[in-house]
């Protein structure tokens, strides 16, 4: 048994960017994920953060093989799944499941909760121990819902409850890895904490590994063991949570952390903020050299010409920058 449940080696995913019209030809490519390498150990939670358009969701979806990777390698549970066909993927999918962001569009409104959750068994042709209905009831109890509600429809539940249904569905096949794509960002603040606690408990109970994709740094800090910071398709920095938040080495990480509003007025008034200029550049035409150079206050000539190597600053912390913070 390998130590890592998931390994990505130099993963890239480019989408064709089309010019308008019916007879459009590809006029370029969107470099959504550009050479991402990361690992998720068994029982570990890895947080993947970045702003919209940085490619974090694409990484999650490519791991699930919902997108075919352009190049690179995906190793899941010791097996290279990069080039597996749809049929060959099926048995593997039961060991990796996904929780989606929007609890409204990710559940079929015409199906009962029971049908939604048991569809995993139907698709994989599995008869769970004790029967389908028994298992679904158990799953509902596990995620904190009333098992009597098995015949209700999604619209009868609130947002937080629907997210619990999505979680129950993902747990039905006893997966090893869960890719959670912004699982709480559509929920109210008081409900977010409930779902985060649930994910924490499930991990302890079932020994799950999470790849947790989110933009909210305070939540990522709370739930993750390690954090990967992405910008424009590339990994900027990777470190254990504590180190990353205490001692960010990449200027982008530093700016991102300082931009997060803190729910503490006195601290907010006293701390120094780095306000980045401008917006995220387009991934169709990323800046040359370091992709962050257009918004970086430390950028020198070399940043505009040479792509920075990923350097190991401590045994567990890596950063891709010519002039990392010390």
């Amino acid at each position, binding site marked *: 048994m390998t130590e890592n449940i998931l390994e990505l080696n130099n993963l890239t995913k480019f989408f064709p960017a089309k010019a308008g019209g019916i007879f459009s030809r590809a006029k370029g490519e969107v470099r959504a994920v550009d050479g991402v390498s990361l690992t998720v150990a068994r029982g570990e939670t890895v947080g993947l953060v970045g702003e919209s358009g940085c490619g974090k969701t694409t990484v999650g979806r490519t791991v699930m093989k919902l997108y075919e990777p352009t190049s690179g390698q995906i190793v899941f549970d010791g097996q290279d799944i990069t080039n597996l066909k749809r049929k060959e993927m099926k048995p593997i999918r039961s060991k990796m499941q996904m929780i989606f962001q929007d609890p409204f569009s990710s559940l079929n409104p015409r199906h009962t909760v029971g049908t939604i959750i048991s569809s995993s068994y139907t698709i994989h042709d599995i008869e769970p121990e004790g029967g389908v209905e028994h298992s679904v009831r158990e799953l509902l109890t596990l995620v904190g819902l009333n098992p009597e509600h098995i015949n209700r429809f999604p619209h009868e539940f609130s947002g937080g409850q629907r997210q619990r249904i999505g979680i129950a569905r993902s747990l039905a096949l006893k997966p090893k890895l869960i890719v959670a794509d912004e699982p709480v960002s559509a929920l109210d603040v008081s409900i*977010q*904490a409930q779902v985060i606690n649930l994910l924490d408990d499930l991990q302890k109970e079932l020994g799950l590994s999470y790849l947790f994709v989110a933009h909210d740094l305070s939540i990522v800090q709370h739930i993750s063991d390690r954090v990967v910071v992405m910008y424009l398709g590339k990994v900027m920095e990777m470190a254990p949570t504590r180190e990353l938040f205490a001692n960010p080495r990449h200027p982008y990480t530093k700016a991102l952390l300082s931009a997060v*509003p803190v729910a503490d007025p006195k601290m907010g008034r006293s701390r120094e903020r780095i306000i980045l200029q401008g917006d995220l550049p387009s991934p169709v035409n990323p800046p040359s050299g370091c992709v962050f150079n257009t918004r970086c206050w430390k950028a020198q000539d070399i940043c505009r010409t040479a792509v920075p190597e990923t350097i190991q600053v401590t045994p567990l912390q890596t950063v891709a920058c010519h002039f990392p913070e010390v």
Partner: protein
Amino acid sequence: MSKFLEVTNLNVTFPTQDGEVRASNEVSYSVDLGETLAIVGESGSGKSVSNLAVMGLHNPTRTKITGSAVLNLANGPVDVISASAETVRRLRGKAMSMIFQDPMSALHPFFTIGDQIAEGWHLYNKGSKKDGIKKATEMLEIVGIPDASSRVHDYPHQFSGGMRQRAMIAMALVNNPSLLIADEPTTALDVTVQSQILKLLKDLQKEFNMAIILITHDLGVVAEVADRICVMYGGRIVENGTVDDIFYRPEHPYTLGLLNSVPRISDGQSHRLRAIPGQPPSLISLPSGCAFQPRCEYSSKVTSGACNSTVPSLSDKGSGHLSRCHLDVADLNNLVKDKA
């Protein structure tokens, strides 16, 4: 001294198929020029509804509004609730203005940014189309759009999310309003862009001495920009105080629960989040008594059992810090201490 906007006992109800929704219930607040009032609450707490009433944006045939919202203008006070639609229309854009959460759906995709900003200016100013564009360019410069003189001719789809929100702000401020209502202005934006926009709003407030009402669910944003805070729950204001009152001396169990349930960057990750159990109530069938009672961990400590039967009044326990709870503040603080 009266403040610039004074909202008193505002009730907003709309009929729906499932019954009457009382979205704003005896809501009172005020905000002065140069001041930022934040209205905080979860979805369905009624935080947007009362401000839409101030702007006169509810459907008058369907919505029932009572109470008053007085704007103390230079030429005398006007109650926008009882005033005619025409009077309110003349105040909109000039005395008060609003920006919305989603800048893409609030901008018209067929017209250039410049035209859309100039449209509001033409309503209150005489000038040629060229003057309008000149004014729009000036506004875009104020809100920090680089190369404004050429970008003024762009369409909304050519702007990024942050730039669209800047254009919205430019549009709202083109007639130099005294009151700006910002409804979740940064929720759709990334954090690095959010901090740009919040700083911009603060700077513009100083420059133009505006009153700002910020409607949001994000406690972090509130902590950074607000002077005063109203916390809403189930259509009612449950607590009203200064930023420091709310964050350091909260007097309502809901505010306390809200503050405890957000993970903070500053502290370690080891402890478990203290979530508020249950869900926010539906505005159609509010619990009897205190709306927060079913989720409140302290309601059993109120020996009189009043939480189930009577709505607590919003009372001042000193120094203008209001809270709506049957528990005495000292008792609540002791209970919190015992738990910790």
